[in-house]
């Protein structure tokens, strides 16, 4: 059984391109070209060069000694937090800006929730000298001021999304609407493995550099390229897609996906899509999403803005339904505690998204000899205010 995408753009029954006809030419142009472009030697060379010299790859695979001792297992951290701009998001934006340029696009749009993807997009646009417009819910603009300032310093225009609930899903709607209105010169750099085919596959491929590195790094350190477990937090699912990618079809490697339970899965304030979601269509993709009985998309909640998305990428919907990945949900409080523990034990301040993945060790017992690789998807600088407020620091 293959867990990767099929020829028609589906993971099992999830995926596809459920888009209005106005978007068809844009999405179709991308679909027809993305694999061809990614296979060009010149493209690969430029992508890899930028990942090395600009992003700082390969990111270390670090054996977390004190954390491993505490939980009596072998924990490795894949340090995406050490990338330029502080998270895995830049792997995707570097790939997509090169793709946009190959397709002759001169104007870039993006959506952002917490601002991490917005900053990563503004960064690559500055690098390439392209116009950049980032849509952000006006509620998020208010609560993520430092990232808004970063985007502006990098030369991007931040446009408030004023529709619907005025957060990430609405920013995504606005970006899609912008693309409908600018079909010729614009490329939409989507921030996760979501959206219509080919986006989930394209973003997963750009992020797959992460598991490619884990394979040889683990081989060097442990003599085997295969961990027993790979753990990642899931918002849309791009950092998870990156760490899972080369292990998808190798069932010796167990996959763990950590979702945000918010104030508790049954509290009415949660973002645990696998538990609370039902099959449906969001942002052009058939996947699991949180919705009313009537099919209206509902607003999720998590303390972490990056996990605060009512859907999940179609790859992950399939990994969940097929049982290939184990899904665990972690509350705000447990995530925050795990984040602080990481600071104290390893001297690393993680992004709150990442803290959710770290909380898995309190929920699940691993064997002493298990090798567990955790995606340390981002650094916590952007979250200091939230940590300060939570712990009254």
């Amino acid at each position, binding site marked *: 059984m293959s867990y990767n995408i099929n020829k028609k753009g589906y993971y099992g029954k999830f995926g596809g391109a459920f888009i209005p006809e106005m978007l068809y030419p844009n999405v179709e142009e991308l679909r027809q070209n993305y694999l061809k472009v990614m296979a060009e030697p010149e493209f690969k060379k430029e992508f890899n060069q930028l990942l090395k010299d600009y992003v700082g790859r390969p990111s270390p695979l670090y054996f977390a000694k004190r954390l491993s001792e505490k939980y009596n297992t072998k924990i490795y951290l894949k340090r995406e937090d050490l990338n330029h701009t502080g998270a895995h998001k830049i792997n995707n934006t570097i790939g997509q800006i090169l793709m946009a340029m190959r397709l002759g696009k001169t104007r870039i749009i993006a959506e952002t929730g917490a601002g991490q993807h917005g900053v990563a997009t503004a960064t690559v646009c500055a690098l390439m000298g392209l116009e950049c417009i980032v849509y952000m819910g006006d509620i998020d603009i208010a609560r993520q001021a430092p990232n808004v300032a970063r985007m502006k310093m990098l030369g991007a225009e931040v446009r408030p999304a004023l529709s619907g609930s005025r957060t990430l899903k609405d920013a995504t709607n606005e970006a899609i609407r912008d693309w409908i209105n600018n*079909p010729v010169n614009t490329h939409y750099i989507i921030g996760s493995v979501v959206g219509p085919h080919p986006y989930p596959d394209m973003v997963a491929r750009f992020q797959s550099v992460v598991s490619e590195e884990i394979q040889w790094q683990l081989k060097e350190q442990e003599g085997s390229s295969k961990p027993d477990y790979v753990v990642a937090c899931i918002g849309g699912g791009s950092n998870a897609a990156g760490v899972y990618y080369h292990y998808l079809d190798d069932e010796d490697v167990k996959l763990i996906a950590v979702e945000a339970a918010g104030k508790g899965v049954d509290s009415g304030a949660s973002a645990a899509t696998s538990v609370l979601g039902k099959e449906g269509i969001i942002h052009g993709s058939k996947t699991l999403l949180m919705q009313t009985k009537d099919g209206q998309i509902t607003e999720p909640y998590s303390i972490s803005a990056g996990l605060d998305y009512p859907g999940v990428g179609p790859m992950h919907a399939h990994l969940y339904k097929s049982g290939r990945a184990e899904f665990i949900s972690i509350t705000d409080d447990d995530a925050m505690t795990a984040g602080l523990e990481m600071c104290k034990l390893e001297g690393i301040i993680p992004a709150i998204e990442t803290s959710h993945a770290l909380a898995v060790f309190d929920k699940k017992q691993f064997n002493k000899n298990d090798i567990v690789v955790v995606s340390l998807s981002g650094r916590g600088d952007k979250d200091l205010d939230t940590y300060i407020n939570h712990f009254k620091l």
Partner: protein
Amino acid sequence: MTIDNIMNRIQIKLKEDKKLLSIYFTAGYPNINDTVTIIQNLEKNGVDMIEIGLPFSDPLADGPTIQASSTQALKNGMTTEVLFNQLKDIRKTVNIPLVIMGYFNPMLQYGVEAFCAKCQEIGIDGLIIPDLPVDVYHEEYKAIFEKHGLINVFLITPQTSVERINYIDSISNGFIYIVSSASTTGAKSGFGDEQTNYFKRIANMNLNNPQIVGFGISNNETFAQATQYAKGAIIGSAFIKYLTNNGVDKIDSFVKQILT
């Protein structure tokens, strides 16, 4: 009963020797119980066809006006079930073709087959579902729509290739919805040569299905421009704005203004 042996109201209407005016409104807006009144008033004043918008929380293809009416309609309590209940006796008083326009997710949750069956029971003639892709419809849902006598309407835009227009024409059995420009819904300041040439280009393709233009039509001038080459035109956002300012009692003057 299939679409081939019984003529659908849309197909009959399309045979009339006149330019057709179709009006879109969002069900549940301005007030939850306005649906039937709006439909009856539109018919009484000479509108040829009505698109009843089933509101959605995330209307990707819509501009600010329809976004706002959808948000308000949902706040007012509109749901698929409520709409079907409001429409259950509509065919006792209304004869013109009725089309439901909505996004795919609410239909999927209701169940596509159940949704179509309910539409047939009520006397709905067609559906416009912007985010149901042509090939998915073709492979998975066409048989269901046809079983329930429903016409599915597809959109084309200035960017749609000739090949794709021909494909869409081949699986349509009512009319083709011409989106006037690359944009979301909402009134523009008027049509220029670019749009007129595009409408003409489509007319010259001699498609099997007549074409009706939508997006950006707001008054009698844009209606006349749009229908110079096409069979009819659809007005949405401009009508919603009118309802916002004037309520449902003065629909007659809105329609008169378009048709003079």
